[in-house]
């Protein structure tokens, strides 16, 4: 229970990787604020229920992370309810895939707004509280796409590469205050987001993965929880790939 007495906020935790992270972080003793995009309250409630059934503590909180005011209200609400904010997992993210030549302005902007601006707003708000207690862990979800690229995902790739640069800069800024800032770069993970890939594309993908399988949300959650555990106290500014060896 190495996260006992810690308060964790996981964005986009109503499904997929975020949900797995919330469940795993709760299992190690943290109180988990399960953030969901407005409209996903039922799914978020299910995650809270699952955590509580397993003996953990959690509550849900809505926010569209692309909106600064939503984020500030959310962080204030979490701190008001739980007394602190020690761990921030920036997981909320979307895709709007399209080849660049055909990519619409709004599809570029929407992905950057949620994936990158969201990380900016959430981290900036959370840091205020972590600085006060001189302890914090921030883990943001980047992606193999932000490192090696993928056709049709210029917006997504840009946002994820942006998260990597952001992580390294902020890690340097707050390291002296006991706050570690890292990123996890998942490869292809079986979730609602990737379920939309065609079976042929999926098979082709699997062929390219050294470990021979598509990842699970639990694979990613394991890496995230490691980064917020005492075992990772000397790790900051890093990008931990969880991609079955796709990018070596």
């Amino acid at each position, binding site marked *: 229970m190495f996260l006992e007495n810690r308060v964790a906020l996981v964005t986009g935790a109503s499904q997929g990787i975020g949900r797995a992270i919330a469940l795993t972080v709760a299992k190690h003793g943290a109180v988990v604020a399960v953030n969901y995009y407005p409209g996903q309250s039922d799914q978020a409630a299910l995650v809270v229920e699952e955590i509580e059934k397993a003996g953990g503590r959690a509550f849900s909180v809505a926010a569209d992370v692309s909106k600064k005011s939503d984020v500030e209200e959310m962080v204030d609400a979490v701190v008001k309810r739980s007394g602190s904010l020690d761990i921030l997992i920036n997981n909320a993210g979307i895709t709007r895939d399209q080849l660049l030549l055909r990519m619409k302005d709004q599809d570029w902007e929407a992905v950057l707004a949620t994936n990158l601006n969201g990380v900016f707003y959430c981290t900036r708000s959370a840091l*205020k509280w972590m*600085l006060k207690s001189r302890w914090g862990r921030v883990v943001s979800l980047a992606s193999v796409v932000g490192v090696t690229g993928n056709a049709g995902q210029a917006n997504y790739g840009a946002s994820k590469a942006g998260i990597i640069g952001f992580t390294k800069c902020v890690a340097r*800024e*707050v390291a*002296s*205050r006991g706050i570690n800032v890292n990123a996890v770069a998942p490869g292809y993970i079986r979730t609602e987001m990737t379920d939309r890939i065609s079976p042929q594309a999926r098979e082709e993908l699997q062929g390219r993965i050294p470990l021979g399988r598509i990842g699970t949300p639990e694979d990613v959650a394991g890496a995230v929880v490691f980064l917020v555990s005492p075992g990772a106290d000397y790790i900051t500014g890093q990008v931990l790939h969880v991609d079955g060896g796709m990018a070596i």
Partner: protein
Amino acid sequence: MADLSDQAIFEKVRSIIVEQLGVEENAVALETSFEALNADSLDIVELIMALEETFGMEIPDEDAEKILTVGAAVEYIKANS
């Protein structure tokens, strides 16, 4: 906050500095510069934020940059709160 005396403002500012920078109270006088107190850039940001919160005001970056001593902070608060 309009009726706070200079001394009261100074004492509040001093207590914030003592807490933030971990220095002794008697190391903080009006003429003391933040540089002399070994405040790094993050310390200054936190100090400004603490002042904003305590005195219920916003201190834009251009103004914050000019607050180099404890006395300057007290003057600024007096003039703007």
